[in-house]
């Protein structure tokens, strides 16, 4: 599945900012890290700020901080700020009106449904766990939990 570049930048920026410990980044710093234009990233950050997911910190060492809820914000929430997911008006009206057109729309709608369910179920917290797992090569254990098994 293809995502627009703005959606991808937004997801990367949010994962960067939402990862513990709390941190802030200047747009130029993040743009350089990910090899994207500062101008494009600044626009993306403005959209995220309007959505309440980040807040701007002013001053010489200013930048952006994460201000959303990592356990409640899903990839779908982020992507929908930048694009409409879905197969869109891919056919001409004449094609759309045929039985074949309707059948194809039905199949594409099924794919859209699955994509929405997937993106809507993956929170930023889950993404951070996935990133962590990739980094460690195995599933990481939460430091705040202690499990004792007795038989």
């Amino acid at each position, binding site marked *: 599945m293809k995502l627009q570049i703005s959606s991808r930048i937004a997801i990367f920026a949010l994962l960067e900012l939402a990862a513990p410990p709390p941190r802030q980044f200047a747009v130029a710093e993040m743009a350089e890290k990910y090899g994207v234009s500062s101008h494009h990233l600044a626009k993306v950050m403005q959209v995220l700020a309007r959505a309440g997911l980040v807040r701007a910190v002013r001053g010489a060492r200013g930048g952006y901080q994460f201000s959303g809820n990592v356990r409640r914000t899903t990839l779908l929430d982020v992507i929908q700020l930048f694009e409409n997911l879905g197969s869109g008006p891919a056919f001409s009206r004449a094609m759309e009106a045929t039985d074949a057109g309707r059948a194809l729309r039905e199949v594409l709608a099924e794919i859209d449904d699955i994509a929405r369910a*997937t993106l809507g179920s993956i929170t930023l917290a889950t993404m951070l766990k996935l990133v962590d797992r990739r980094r460690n090569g195995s*599933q990481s254990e939460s430091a705040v939990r202690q499990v004792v098994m007795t038989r």
Partner: protein
Amino acid sequence: MASMTAIITAEKSVLAVRPVRPADIPHVIALDKQITGLVKREYWQQAFERYAAREARDRSFLVAEAHGTKSRTPILGFIIGEVRAWEFGSAPCGWVFALSVEPRARLRGVGQALFEAISAEFKAAGVRSVRTMVARGNRLHLAFFRSEGMMAGPYLQLEKELD
């Protein structure tokens, strides 16, 4: 499965996960009614007979309760699963087919404790993967299982309305 008790120190409370007992079944029925709006006495009684009454290495019916404190609710949640082999050509795999958490006890690690406990049971039974099925529209359950590291598996579920 085994007579295991897992004592879990979560962020805000201490939970115990243990095999279901006959006295828990009315509370399981009540919790399920609270969540689904349906009373299924016979179904849960049969589930108890099948998954808990007989000692079986490949079946688990576990409940979570507050450990060492007087909880307002008798059980905080339950989970049921079993190891199934060779259905649809699948190698032996743990299946979770019921998970419910008391709404007032959510966001306290109850679901995670239950899932970790049944995963440990599956592992002890010799399987290497765990599987479940969630309604596409059920964001709560989907997000929970995703947060536990579950990803799309190798199968697609298909169905058809019968004329």
